[in-house]
């Protein structure tokens, strides 16, 4: 509780400073170089914020003359493409937009340049580092060094259908048990035809694996020995705790929740859940904040204006630790136009342009944007995001070079438990064995 209060005070102070900074006008013409005739290339995920980047980027062209091309790829394809480009010293792309959990892998492979020099030499009101939420700043840093610029930081929230909850007359769940009961209320209930209670990320691999990491703290556990919330050195002892009692209970909870999901929920990942919620088939869903826009868009959703957000539930006796994720922008170490790339990031990451990006649908990563009245009015769940960032922990998912493989390995075993191919205990014992072997083989564990 003291930590949360402290974080809140720091956030408040940072917000005041940041607001003052934002208030100052920046002469971008003198801050940025003339890049006429050049074209900046960046690759990013095809998440909804790609449209927000496209809606904002022309401002940079107006100031510098440089065109900005944005190429979108799926999650796995982007990871693959960025690392392959790096392994081939490819200079085709100037900026890599990457998931914060890949930062260890790309930093240690020498794929990205550090942002420290740029931040140190730039005007404080441009980078306004303290205006980023602590977990956003953490996502962009690796091994104590600021490597990238946070642009689209996500927090996971629980979304619930207000119309259904009013009709059922039940409170919004805060604990796992309450969540189960609420999900049960809406499932196979003639009063709510065609509606199911809840759907989780159960698909084999990254989906189920990430879900385990996102929920384990709220289930009272932790993923490995030294990864305590607020730890100065969370990677000191990476002995996994995948078969701890809290972990096995959590996997049992995932399995129990499939009873309240639509047919085939065992193979659901992010898209299937978001589509089912937008189609009005689900009473509740937990999801990254960026997808709330889709659910609130009447042209794509049948539940626009009919849902609200709340913090993720927690196990009885534990407290909610909001999962943090999202995207940071980094300069390709092998890029040929680093000056243009840094100028773009200076401009795009600045508080004023960040607000434009957020108003165009991008996820807020700055405290100033999260508390901006215009943003809050347009995206009502921003208030919950502000609350979520207070109790988020940046290392909720591993971010070292083996993160992708480790998450996938855990996800395979979690999925086996969910479909009944193994008991939760047996599945997580196997995950413990596999991950320990992986970490030892790659020198991350003695």
């Amino acid at each position, binding site marked *: 509780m003291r930590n949360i209060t402290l974080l809140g005070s720091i956030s408040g102070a940072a917000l005041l400073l940041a607001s003052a900074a934002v208030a100052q006008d920046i002469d971008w013409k003198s801050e940025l170089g003339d890049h006429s005739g050049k074209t900046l290339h960046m690759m990013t995920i095809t998440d909804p914020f790609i449209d927000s980047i496209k809606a904002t980027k022309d401002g940079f062209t107006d100031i510098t003359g440089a065109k900005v091309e944005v190429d979108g790829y799926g999650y796995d394809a982007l*990871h693959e493409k960025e690392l392959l480009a790096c392994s081939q010293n490819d200079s085709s792309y100037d900026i890599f937009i990457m998931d914060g959990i890949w930062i260890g892998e790309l930093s240690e492979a020498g794929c990205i340049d550090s942002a420290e020099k740029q931040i140190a030499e730039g005007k404080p009101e441009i980078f306004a580092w303290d205006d980023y939420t602590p977990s956003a700043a953490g996502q962009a840093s690796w091994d104590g060094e600021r490597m990238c610029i946070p642009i689209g930081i996500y927090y996971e929230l629980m979304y619930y259908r207000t119309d259904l909850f009013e009709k059922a007359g039940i409170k919004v769940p805060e604990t796992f048990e309450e969540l189960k009961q609420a999900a049960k209320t809406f499932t196979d209930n003639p009063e709510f035809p065609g509606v199911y209670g809840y759907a989780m990320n159960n698909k084999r691999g990254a989906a189920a694996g990430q879900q385990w990491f996102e929920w384990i703290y709220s289930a009272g556990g932790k993923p490995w020995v030294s990864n305590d919330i607020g730890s100065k050195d969370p990677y000191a002892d990476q002995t996994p705790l995948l078969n701890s009692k809290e972990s096995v209970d959590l996997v049992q909870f995932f399995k129990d929740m499939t009873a309240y999901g639509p047919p*085939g929920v*065992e*193979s659901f990942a992010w898209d299937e859940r978001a589509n*089912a919620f937008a189609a009005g088939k689900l009473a509740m869903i937990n999801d990254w904040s960026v997808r709330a826009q889709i659910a609130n868009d009447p042209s794509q959703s049948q539940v626009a204006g009919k849902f609200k957000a709340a913090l993720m539930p927690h196990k009885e006796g534990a407290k909610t630790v909001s999962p943090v994720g999202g995207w940071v922008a980094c300069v390709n170490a092998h890029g040929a136009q680093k000056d243009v790339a840094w100028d773009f990031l200076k401009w795009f990451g600045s508080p004023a342009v960040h607000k434009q990006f957020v108003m165009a649908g991008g996820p807020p990563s700055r405290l100033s944007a999260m508390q901006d009245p215009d943003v809050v009015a347009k995206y009502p769940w921003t208030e919950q995001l502000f609350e979520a960032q207070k109790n988020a922990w940046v290392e909720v998912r591993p971010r070292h070079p083996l993160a992708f*493989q480790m998450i996938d390995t855990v996800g395979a075993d979690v999925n*086996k438990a969910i479909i009944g191919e193994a008991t939760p205990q047996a599945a997580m014992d196997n995950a413990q064995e596999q991950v320990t072997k992986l970490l030892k083989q790659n020198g991350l564990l003695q």
Partner: protein
Amino acid sequence: MASLVSGTTSDMTPRPSRRAFYTGDRFQAAAFIVPSCIFLALLTIWPFFYSVYLSLHRVRLTALKRAVFVGFENYWNLVTDTLFQHALLNTLMLATASIACEIIIGFVVAKAFVSIAHLRWSNWLRSFFLMPMMVTPLIVGMIFAYVFNPVLGIANYLLNSVGLAPVSWFGDPFPAMLSILLINVWQWTPFMMLLIMAGLFSIRSDLYEAARVDGAKWHHILRFLEIPSIRGIVLLGIILRIIDTLRFFDVVYVTTRGGPGDSTMVLTLYAYQQNFQFFQAGTGSAAAVIILVISIVITTFAVRLLRRIEND
């Protein structure tokens, strides 16, 4: 002494002129063969040996310079890895089941097309039947991901409209494997049908007439006339389809990612994950080498069988 003799002999042989060398058979043969050899060496042989080299090292694709020689450790890790074992078993099951279905359905459809060959619109119908084969497998995977979507897909909608319970197509191991099999059969039966139809058209009509005159029933014609006539071409189809199935990747990648559990994991997806998702180039290369060895063994065996049939 030997060099003296050889020197004497070479001095006695008239040296061919440069013009004669360029117009001679040996030069022309070399001119045709050398580019192919260079192409093979650069794009096939060198990558193969490099893969073997990587497979003997613990190395990540992003840190090739930090490779550590580990001998056959990657191969040992693979053969003792239950996921790899499942991938191997699933691939073999998928190959056997889908090729069997493709031959049976392909034969029935080919017979139907042969029997309506005299009709004017039969060519159009045949072209329509070949269309699945022309679609990119990745697109096929995406289409079926929508068709079998448990909530919004048309498959469950149709089941529901006739009063049947919805199926978790990609959520349970058995339906997931069955769905993958169904997609594979749907796409590649036309290929087998095309081969079998070519075989059936090659049977002279007087042989059918002779068989009927001799009082042969349909199953006699099938057993003693049609199957012997098409078995060579069917075996060729089997070889091609085995190679295809060993490379089978796109549909699984798009629909199930090898799940639920390990139920639809196939060899190529395993190798792809190791190489391009986890960037474990050593393990991934070892998996690729094993796939190649399996392909070579199966293909060699099948080609020998094909030759024996042709000789018969």
